[in-house]
């Protein structure tokens, strides 16, 4: 018995030592971005695991590629950039502690998230701490504009917003597909999905279409039979699913299984080029989604980026990877223009961004901290997804 207890205590001590050993070196200069020398820290919070793991891992690939390129070219202000990526586990509650940690580490700027709900969970914290944050791909309006207090001083993004994305879905469904009776199936718990559904609805009705059904689901749902049965009964000619890819796959498969054979259209939350249609190719016939970027675009810089990315990660970049790359490059550019790592100076430089040439398009920050960018519509079929249509900002 005594022996057992000794062994147990030793094991416990070993585990404790291992945990303490893993902790990174202490906090550095928490005040105004990390000091005058050493590395410039950029924090990246991302869904590296959990339901939306594709969001985090692909964005992180893009961000890492950007950091590696910048460092290989001599860094910024003569200093190397260090990217610290921490996992939100695809949860909102995982976000605030990460922002605290970035603050303690003395991060100059923060990049993240993809899901608007999680970026919204970070926004109050970065506003309080005064750390500039660039969301690569959160499209919800409230990410940069607090409905009660106006524009968030410290929050920026490198992507278009949902009122535009919803309009593009509506124009595509109404114009290109020629559909008039839309059904919407959206995630009621995600600000992204709710905002996009709303914007689609307004625009589709304005164009003369009719919304025959609006059904909801939540994050943990795996069965959509009840909603799809109801939708089928209302006889729509197009189904709009502004959700995230893992549930989109289930919805599309189950819709086809129930004989709902109308075209299905979604937004950038579908962007999982490797997994979305795998094993469900038949079901994904006649499905489309709006996106920020396609590796097939013939714009300057796209081919170069796609080749560098392929070489580094042995896969095609999706839009999230390209936006992750742009977000980090934009931050580095702002630090360069600010001439210092002072957080306020970097924020001011970000706000003054005009005609920054990113791989996902030209970024000019407007009064609401949003860029105006072109959207593409791709077909969810094959790899990479074929480009169907391009919608420049109006």
């Amino acid at each position: 018995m005594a022996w057992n207890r000794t062994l147990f205590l030793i094991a416990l001590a070993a585990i404790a030592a291992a945990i303490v050993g893993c902790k990174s070196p202490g906090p550095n200069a928490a005040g105004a971005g990390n000091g005058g020398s050493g590395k410039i820290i950029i924090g990246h919070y991302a869904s590296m695991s959990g339901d939306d793991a594709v969001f985090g891992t692909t964005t992180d690939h893009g961000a890492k590629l950007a950091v590696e390129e910048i460092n290989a070219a001599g860094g910024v202000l003569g200093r190397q950039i260090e990217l610290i990526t921490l996992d939100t586990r695809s949860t909102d509650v995982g976000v605030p502690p990460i922002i605290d940690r970035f603050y303690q580490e003395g991060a100059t700027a923060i990049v993240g998230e993809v899901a608007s709900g999680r970026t919204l969970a970070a926004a109050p914290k970065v506003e309080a701490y005064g750390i500039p944050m660039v969301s690569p791909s959160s499209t919800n309006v409230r990410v940069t504009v607090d409905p009660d207090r106006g524009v968030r001083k410290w929050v920026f993004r490198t992507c278009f917003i949902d009122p535009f994305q919803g309009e593009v879905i509506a124009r595509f469904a109404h114009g290109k597909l020629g559909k008039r009776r839309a059904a919407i199936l959206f995630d009621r718990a995600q600000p992204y999905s709710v905002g996009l559904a709303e914007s689609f609805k307004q625009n589709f009705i304005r164009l003369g279409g009719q919304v025959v059904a609006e059904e909801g689901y939540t994050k943990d749902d795996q069965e959509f039979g009840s909603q799809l049965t109801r939708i089928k009964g209302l006889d729509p000619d197009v189904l709009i699913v502004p959700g995230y890819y893992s549930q989109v796959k289930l919805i599309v498969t189950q819709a086809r299984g129930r004989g709902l054979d109308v075209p299905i259209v979604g937004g950038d939350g579908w962007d999982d080029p490797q997994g979305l249609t795998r094993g469900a190719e038949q079901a994904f016939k006649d499905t489309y989604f709006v996106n920020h970027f396609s590796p097939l675009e013939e714009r300057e810089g796209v081919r170069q980026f796609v080749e560098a990315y392929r070489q580094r990660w042995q896969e095609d970049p999706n839009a999230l990877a390209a936006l992750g790359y742009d977000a980090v490059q934009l931050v580095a550019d702002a630090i360069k223009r600010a001439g210092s790592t002072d957080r306020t100076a970097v924020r001011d430089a970000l706000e003054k961004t005009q005609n920054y040439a990113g791989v996902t398009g030209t970024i000019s920050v407007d009064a609401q901290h949003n860029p105006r960018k072109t959207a593409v519509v791709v077909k969810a079929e094959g790899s990479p997804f074929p480009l169907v249509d391009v919608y420049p900002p109006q």
Partner: protein
Amino acid sequence: MPGSAHHLLEFVQHLINGLYLGGTYALIALGYTMVYGVLRLINFAHGDVVMVGAYVALFAAAGLHAPAPAPWYQTLLIFLLAMAACALLGMLIERVAYRPLRQAPRLAALITAIGVSVLLENGGQLPWVFGSQPRSVPELVPRVNILPTAWGLSVTPIELVTIGVTLALMVALQMLVQRTRIGKAMRACSMDREAAYLMGIPVNRVILVTFALGSALAAAAGMLIAVKTGQAHAFMGLMLGLKAFVAAVVGGIGSIPGAMVGGFSLGMIEEMVAGYGFSSWRDAIAFVLLILILLVRPTGIMGRAVPEKV
């Protein structure tokens, strides 16, 4: 098609959907109810055993190079492999996480159960375990409509198999508990563990068997659900486990027919609520039901009030 016939069809479709949904809840609820019956423990890791079952089936299908749809004997083999693997896992969980706390306050075991659940969910996401991204599961049993399109109804083989397997396993379990020696021992442990021990019943072994059976049922559910949805991921057991727990309580926790009644009731109620315009209430309704039943009839529909031992 005339309006009324159309509405009738839609209603029948909702009935079919509800039956399938209820079947999956019932199958998982059986495991909760068995463990509770014998140990008075809510095994919150049960939902995650469902997830492990789905992954074992996925790996077994890959290992056997099973085509989609697979021949029945291969499907059955994969099914049994998943059940056997999870039976072992269930026994391991009992041995490591619950037995050392057998004499501790009940709350301690409950906390350990949540700990095991968190371990399985997050451990499962490690790249060398299951990985953090959803994996697609082959269509071992077809998930396409077998009715003529003109009927406007959809019934898939996997739904029928799920309902059939649920009923068969429930009957088998009921027979086992009522008619066999080990079943008698389980019932004895359920009534009074100490007295059973004094009568020479190997209590620890009985509890291990209970966990093995419950976990095997969870694996069955996990495989069927994963084949139906075509997807497995580390968190798939979380909500399923909670819903099945509600089903077990509604039916009367500790009662096998109760788990069945609770499972099918919950599935049907959810389907009707979601299918007739209240889809955002789908999850809420399960927990509203839990609160109502605890207020009105805490022993559940089929449960009997057992006087607390003093």
